[in-house]
Each structure stands twice: as structure tokens, then as C-alpha cells.
């Protein structure tokens, strides 16, 4: 029999079986397919999104798309003005912010400390000198102030302090880190850099899940340069935001080709993230795929059972169909179409739920993990691949039981004999 004819008859039968099937049964199977689809996409999406959240936070709050920073053997980028001048000539650059950076200590409650044998209320910190206006325009740092106010360019003796440096926001006790107690906006602290100490007032507290921000102290660049005794204009970091559509990797290569790599370290935002994070991302993606595979097997078994029960209970009718001359292939195709229907409808509803509800919802209200704001990562291509996998699995799971029943002796099926 011509394959096309089998397909036509298979479709004819499937359509009528589906149309006149119990709405509850159809609804239940479609619901199972919907859950399977969401399991396939969302579990992996959240696991990957958890790490993607870190990437995104680094990119938006700290590094930009590409970051140029001092070589490990230097405290600053040599010929910063030349580098900046070059960057300004590039059409891909939409925004930049420059930072000075050094190590320092902060001590609090030194005025009320009576027992000098007592450990001082002090901690080490990364001290970052910024142009408050440019930094806020680039990273939106002001939005991360949870207490107090943001810095102004004219602030002479004010600093912002990262949340991880304060006991009330820190993640409990961590070795090597002694967060400050009783410190908040208005508290006077001593900031010591390279032996030079200045008494400053905490103007605001920066809350960020990125260690580089949460464990830093911010003050205007001019003040930090004074404290460091630096008179040159060489900064430690230049964070660069590219125009939409520009490729950070290609831009990095461009900078390296221009010779900037000899004066500074050039990294994309992904390069700058600690290796461990990238490893976690890979591991989570593998875990997600593992969970998805289990989901796929469960879906296959569910469809197999549903179609098998359907075919077993309809064995007599399958026998009759064969008896009156309907080809076994057409009958099998009718079950394939039914499986396809369940998978496609389940996936279609799943797509609507995913992109219509879940992705926007999680984007608006990221999942609050301790180390990142988790988003739901569901790239359309990956989702498409998962749909194809689900549909293929379902079709095979639907075909096998129908084939088993169709292959049985025609007369035995009609008469209900085993």
C-alpha cells in the first residue's frame, strides 16, 4: 500500500479517535506532557540560570562587556590615558568607567575601645576609587545602596562600604574575614592605605552578591589618589560597555591586536568570572540534562503505557480494521499521530507557559539565591531541541505498543483470543 495512503488513513483514524476520546483522559495526558516539557526546560533553565545570574550580575554591576585591568605585576594600567584615548576611537564602545584600586584596612569603634588587648574591630578590604557619577551611570551602583546615601563627587571624607564587610549582612563566620560590627551610615571609621590613615564617615552600604563589590570600600577617585600618594592618571581598571550586538570576544581580540595586552589584562566579562563559577555552570548544566533525561524517560514510559492500554483495550477494533483490509501501517500511523498530538499540544502549552509566564516572571522577580539572582535561562534554540527530543521520544513510545498489538493475529484480535 502506498505510504501516503497509509498516512492519510492513519490521520483519519487518529483524528476521529482523538475527537471522540474522553476529554478528561486527553486533558490528563496533555497535562503530563506539559509537566514533562516544563521539567525538561525549566529544571535545566533554573540550574543554568542560577550561574547565568552571576554572569549577568558581573556584567551589569562590575565588568561591563569587557574589562581592561592592571597586569598582575603592576598596580595600574600603564599609559592609561593612551589606552582610554584609543578606546574612545572605537565605535563599539558605548560607555566606560575607570577605577583606581588598592588594598586597605578599615577600623571601627577605635574611639570607644578601652581594652587594648582586645582584638580591634577592623577588617581588610579592597578599596576602589571611582568617579561616582560615571560609575553609577555604568553599573547603577546607587541602586544597590541599602542604607544611607550614594557618594557625590565632592565627598571628601565619605565612603561606601560593601555589605560583606558588615557583620549584620555577612554570610556568618568566614575564615580570614572579620566583618565589622556596629557600623552603618554615619559611623566614623579609619581607612588605612599604604600606611596613610584617614578618618572617614560611612555614607552608605552597598548590597551586592558579587564579592568584588560586597567586599569593597568605595570613595571618590580623587580622594583615593591622595591617600595612595599617586599623582599620575593611571587607573587599575577600565570597564567597557559595548554597543548592542557587538561581540565581546571579537572586541577583546581587537584590543589584544592593538597591543593593549602588553600594558594590561584584557578580559571579557565571562573571562573575569572566577574559574569555579564556570565549572559550577558546566556541572549544573550536566545535572540539568541528567534530570531532563529522567523526565524524558518518564514521559516515554507514560506515553507507552497510555498507548499500550489504549491499544490493548482496542485490540478487537484493531483486529476488525485489519480484517476489513486497513493496513497495519495505517493503524500504527494513527497511534503515532495520537502520540504526536499529545506531545505537540503539551509542548505548545508548555511554550506558552514558559515564555508567556515563567521567563518574564522570573526575570521580574529573580530567584534569590545567596550568591546570585537566579534567572530562568531558556534559549529558543535549546528549547526547540528539547521539544524535538520530547516529540521523538513520544512518537517512539506511542509507536512501539501499537506495533506490538497490530502484529498480533488478526482473527485472535477480533475474537479476543490470546
Amino acid at each position, binding site marked *: 500500500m502506498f505510504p501516503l495512503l497509509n498516512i492519510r488513513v492513519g490521520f483519519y483514524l487518529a483524528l476521529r479517535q482523538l475527537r471522540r476520546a474522553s476529554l478528561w483522559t486527553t486533558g490528563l495526558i496533555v497535562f503530563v506532557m506539559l509537566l514533562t516539557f516544563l521539567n525538561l526546560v525549566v529544571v535545566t533553565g533554573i540550574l543554568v540560570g542560577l550561574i547565568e545570574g552571576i554572569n549577568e550580575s558581573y556584567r551589569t554591576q562590575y565588568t561591563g562587556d569587557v574589562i581592561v585591568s592592571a597586569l598582575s605585576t603592576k598596580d595600574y594600567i600603564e599609559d592609561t590615558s593612551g589606552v582610554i584615548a584609543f578606546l574612545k576611537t572605537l565605535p563599539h564602545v558605548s560607555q566606560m568607567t575607570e577605577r583606581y584600586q588598592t588594598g586597605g584596612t578599615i577600623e571601627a569603634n577605635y574611639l570607644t575601645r578601652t581594652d587594648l588587648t582586645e582584638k580591634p574591630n577592623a577588617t581588610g578590604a579592597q578599596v576602589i576609587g571611582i568617579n561616582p557619577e560615571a560609575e553609577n551611570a555604568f553599573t547603577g551602583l546607587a541602586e544597590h545602596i541599602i542604607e544611607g546615601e550614594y557618594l557625590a563627587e565632592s565627598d571628601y571624607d565619605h565612603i561606601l562600604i560593601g555589605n560583606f564587610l558588615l557583620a549584620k549582612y555577612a554570610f556568618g563566620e568566614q575564615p580570614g574575614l572579620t566583618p565589622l560590627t556596629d557600623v552603618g551610615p554615619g559611623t566614623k571609621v579609619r581607612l588605612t592605605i599604604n600606611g596613610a590613615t584617614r578618618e572617614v564617615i560611612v555614607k552608605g552600604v552597598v548590597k551586592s552578591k558579587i564579592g568584588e563589590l560586597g567586599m569593597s570600600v568605595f570613595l571618590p577617585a580623587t580622594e583615593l589618589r591622595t591617600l595612595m600618594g599617586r599623582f599620575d592618571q593611571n587607573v587599575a581598571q577600565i570597564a567597557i560597555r559595548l554597543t548592542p550586538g557587538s561581540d565581546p570576544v571579537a572586541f577583546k581580540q581587537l584590543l589584544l591586536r592593538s597591543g593593549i595586552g602588553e600594558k594590561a589584562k584584557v578580559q571579557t566579562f565571562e573571562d573575569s568570572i572566577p574559574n569555579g563559577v564556570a565549572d559550577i555552570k558546566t556541572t549544573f548544566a550536566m545535572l540539568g540534562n541528567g534530570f531532563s533525561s529522567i523526565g524524558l524517560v518518564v514521559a516515554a514510559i507514560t506515553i507507552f503505557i497510555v498507548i499500550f492500554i489504549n491499544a490493548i483495550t482496542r485490540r478487537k477494533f484493531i483486529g*476488525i480494521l485489519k480484517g476489513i483490509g486497513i493496513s497495519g501501517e495505517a493503524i500504527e500511523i494513527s497511534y503515532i499521530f495520537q502520540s504526536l498530538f499529545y506531545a505537540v499540544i503539551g509542548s505548545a502549552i508548555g511554550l506558552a507557559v514558559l515564555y508567556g509566564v515563567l521567563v518574564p516572571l522570573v526575570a521580574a522577580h529573580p530567584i534569590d539565591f545567596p550568591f546570585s539572582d537566579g534567572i530562568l535561562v531558556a534559549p529558543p534554540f535549546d528549547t526547540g531541541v528539547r521539544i524535538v527530543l520530547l516529540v521523538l521520544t513520544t512518537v517512539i513510545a506511542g509507536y512501539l505498543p501499537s506495533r506490538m498489538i497490530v502484529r498480533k493475529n488478526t482473527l485472535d484480535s477480533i475474537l479476543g483470543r490470546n
Partner: protein
Amino acid sequence: MIEVKNLVKTFKDGPVETRVLKGIDLSVKDGEFVAIMGRSGAGKSTLLYQISLLDEPTSGRIHINGKETHEMSEHEKMLFRLAEFGYVFQDYALLPELTALENVALPLYMQGASRAAADEKAAAALTRVGLGLRLGNLPSQLSGGEQQRVSISRAIAHTPDVLFADEPTANLDKESSATVMDIFKELHKGGQTIIMVTHEDEFAAFAERIVKLDDGKVISDSRL
């Protein structure tokens, strides 16, 4: 023309072998209306299933229009059943999710007819058995007699060479049975070959020839 030679059918159930047909010889000419009779267990339905290619005999030969069925592949048999045969089963054997029209149109559709042509032929066949107004009804919405008439329509819509009927009146009341037999009579008048299994003399009388079986053998073959 159907010719059956030394047909044997044995059923095996583990070590137990039951020989249901014990060397049947039979020949049915085109246009004949043959009733196969016999008491329960005589082998009449088994004989019908072998001749109608729904089952495979253990041994013996069946020739249909000169063609040796033993040599046919499953696919060829399927095509034969689709195009050359029509079946009327005791329990109607309609597909519950198809309407009367769809049940009748399906084999036509499988033969390659367009939807419109299949539906037109099916509607004509249903009208012929008095169901022209029940085309859109599902089997569950029809009485037993009506369902059997749908079954007959399905069997004759493609104008088969042979119509096989296995106890077509067994589940029907007298009135419906009479209607069904009247239809068979009409079909036979039109030249349709019919082979019908029945255990009721009253309905066997509609046939022109009665073949009686007992214990898997033909014990009489008489013309009325």
C-alpha cells in the same frame, strides 16, 4: 469462484491439539448464496475464517478466482480482503468512534478513493439499507439491527466479489433479522456471492444452497 480442497485446521493449546476442520472440500460459484450450517462446534465459523483469509489453514488449498491463497503474502491478503471481500460479523464489528458514514467510508478511503467519493459511495450504501437519515450517528446511537445494517453497508459499499457473513442475525430480534435477510436476498438477486454461517434453518432458507458441517466435515451439500 472459490475452491477449497482438503482443508484442515488444527488448534494447539500447549500439548493439546484440536482438529476443527478435517479435510473440507467445497466449491462456491460466482453469484451463489451459500449457507453453512451445523451445530455448535461443528467448525462452520472456522471454515468461514479460512475461506475469507482471516485465518491461516493448517493444511489444504484455497483458490479464489484461480489464485492460490496459500502463496499470498500478508500484504496481498490484506489487499484481497480490502478490495474483493466484504464482512458482516455477528457483533457488527463497527468502530465506536466513527459515525455510520465514516465506518462505511473507511475501507473505500483505504482503497484510495477521495474523501468526497468515499463519503458519497458510503452514503449510497447506507441509503440502500434504509439508513440514509442516520449517516452521522455513532454506533452507540443505533439499535442492534441498525448497526448490523451499517455493517452490511460497509461490506457491500465497494461492491466486493464475495460477502462473508458470520451469524449475522444471532444478536438481532426477529424483525431486524428479517430486515437483514431481506437485504441479503436483494444483494443475491443483484448477483452478489454470499457465504453465510448460520445455525437457524429459517434464515438458511434464504440461501440457494446449504452446506452442513458436523465434526469438521461436510455431511451434506444441498441446493434449495
